[in-house]
């Protein structure tokens, strides 16, 4: 059996940050005792003076990053997504988004990446929170190639960006030549029977489910949505209309994330297409435990997506 090549998105991030400085970018990384969470070591070794550690103080983390950017730096924060988006919410809102400072917020270990550490450490609302704030771009990479392309774009972009990051190795879904395009969906697999939209960390699961469906003679269109803002209403509409059946998958609350985005787009355009959303149900905290078990419970792993897709199509496995 072929070995699936995988890479940790944080490793891609750190290499992208090193490359940016090597290419002349005036960049600093700001952490809140999150040097290990971010795996920032190689960057710190190369550029010790470009790493700022504010200690366990996320509000200060965001304010200091905003100040550094106002002093001419591209500031990159790297800490756990729940603390970046919730603990420091008002700093994110005012110092970064509203003030439109050049800060890149890396939301590490988003979704239920912290599995057994439970809901204080889960970020199933980060995209929902960010979509409520103005000015900031929101990206969710699905694999190492896309992540690298997103980092390159984000560092070059003059303004606030949020990147939904993870803590595990991701399989490669894209060829090395792939280029992430902000405001565009990325069709991983074409199909006519139903469209499966997925965000970030569960795109691999959706892609695997798509292959499995193919073996059953079902042609699913697998639509990766790495660019939540700017979104791609036209792309979402096109795949929905083409297939007439829509399933969304996210390691996030179905409120305010990808499922909401797709539903809004289709409702506004009067697509008349029924949308089924997989994710953590509205109004609930996520279960705690091994991440694979959590994904299985909410049906956002390969098997769950497969099961739901067949249900949407009125078939049984």
């Amino acid at each position: 059996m072929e070995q699936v090549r995988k890479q940790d998105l944080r490793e891609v991030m750190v290499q992208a940050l090193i490359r940016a400085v090597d290419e002349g970018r005036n960049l600093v990384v700001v952490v809140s005792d999150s040097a290990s969470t971010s795996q920032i070591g190689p960057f710190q070794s190369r550029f010790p003076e470009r790493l700022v550690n504010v200690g366990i103080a996320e509000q200060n983390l965001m304010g200091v990053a905003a100040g550094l950017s106002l002093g001419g730096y591209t500031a990159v924060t790297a800490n756990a997504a729940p603390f970046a988006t919730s603990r420091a919410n008002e700093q994110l809102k005012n110092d970064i988004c509203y003030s439109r400072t050049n800060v890149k917020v890396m939301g590490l270990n988003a979704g239920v990446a912290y599995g057994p550490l439970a809901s204080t450490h889960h970020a199933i609302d980060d995209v929902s929170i960010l979509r409520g704030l103005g000015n900031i771009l929101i990206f969710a990479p699905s694999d190492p190639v896309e992540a690298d392309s997103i980092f390159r774009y984000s560092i070059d972009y003059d303004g606030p960006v949020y990147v939904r990051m993870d803590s595990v190795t991701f399989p490669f879904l894209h060829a090395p030549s792939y280029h992430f395009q902000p405001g565009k969906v990325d069709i991983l697999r074409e199909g006519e029977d139903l469209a499966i939209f997925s965000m970030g960390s569960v795109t691999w699961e959706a892609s695997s489910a798509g292959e499995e469906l193919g073996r059953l003679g079902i042609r699913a269109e697998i639509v990766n949505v790495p660019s939540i803002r700017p979104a791609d209403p036209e792309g979402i509409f096109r795949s929905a209309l083409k297939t007439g059946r829509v399933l969304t998958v996210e390691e996030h609350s179905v409120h305010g994330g990808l499922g909401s985005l797709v539903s809004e787009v289709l409702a506004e355009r009067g697509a008349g297409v029924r949308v089924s959303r997989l994710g953590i149900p509205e109004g609930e905290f996520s279960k705690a435990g091994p991440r694979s078990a959590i994904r299985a419970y909410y049906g956002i792993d390969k098997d769950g997506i497969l099961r739901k897709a067949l249900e949407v199509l009125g078939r049984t496995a």
Partner: protein
Amino acid sequence: MPLTLSIIYDILSFDMKANEISKVARENPFDASADEIRNRAKEIRKKIVWMNSHAGQGHTGADLSETDILAALFFSVLKYRRDSPQDPDRDRFILSKGHGVGGLYCTLAEAGLLEESLLQTYLQFDSRLPGHPVRQKTPFIEVNTGALGHGLSVGVGLALSAKKSGRDFRVFVLLGDGELQEGSNWEAAMSAAHFKLDNLVAIVDRNTLQLADRTETIMALEPLDRKWDSFGFDVKEADGNDPAAFIDTVGSLDPACGKPHVIIAHTIKGKGVSFIEDRAAWHHKIPVGDQVREAIEELE
């Protein structure tokens, strides 16, 4: 190019010139004497009374409390170029107590950094002068404050950027005293000392009043000097309504002491108008009818 046009051009072009360090030493464009500053402060106070009564809203007590500090900063202390609000080597001023923005607008107008006629648009729909500072709208505003407890962290980041990039500018952050009840200030304070930011000057507008009552009644701040001292700050106290005393205190700061500075500036909220002075009720209130004339007469 007329000054105001060039400022607008400067904002629009948003030219940070981030990697160029100017060799030209910056100065305060006015370098005003204490008497001149007192006179400027009087004019600023008249503008505040007029502007707030015209707008029908405003934080009059807070605006008048900080007026002498703002006048001292913009007419003597801060080093900047009037025609270049985005000059990367300018001293930075952050109004962390963003509700005092009326006082800042009137100071900018008095310094010719803002068109005087714009004061008529204060608080109007989509005005360039909203009720809290917005950097995209008004020159010499560095960050959008209003929610309390934000300015000092941003000031720490700016001061750190100066240290890291070898620039000489200083960062002044004006904090309300009630604002110090926000815990985020103390995260910022801890880091300012840790990073040895002797180019950072926090100024506490210590008028002892917050929105509803005395700070010491609502949530006590004292002993405030010892709090700052224990957080690693170089602590000074000054009469914040006496520009000469305030400027002397700023002048006495050791710029290479390895510690961030704080000046606890003792002020009177509503200073200059007897029926507004030291009254919590005037935090967010404006003079109406005869009060406007009475206030202006007192200030003359």
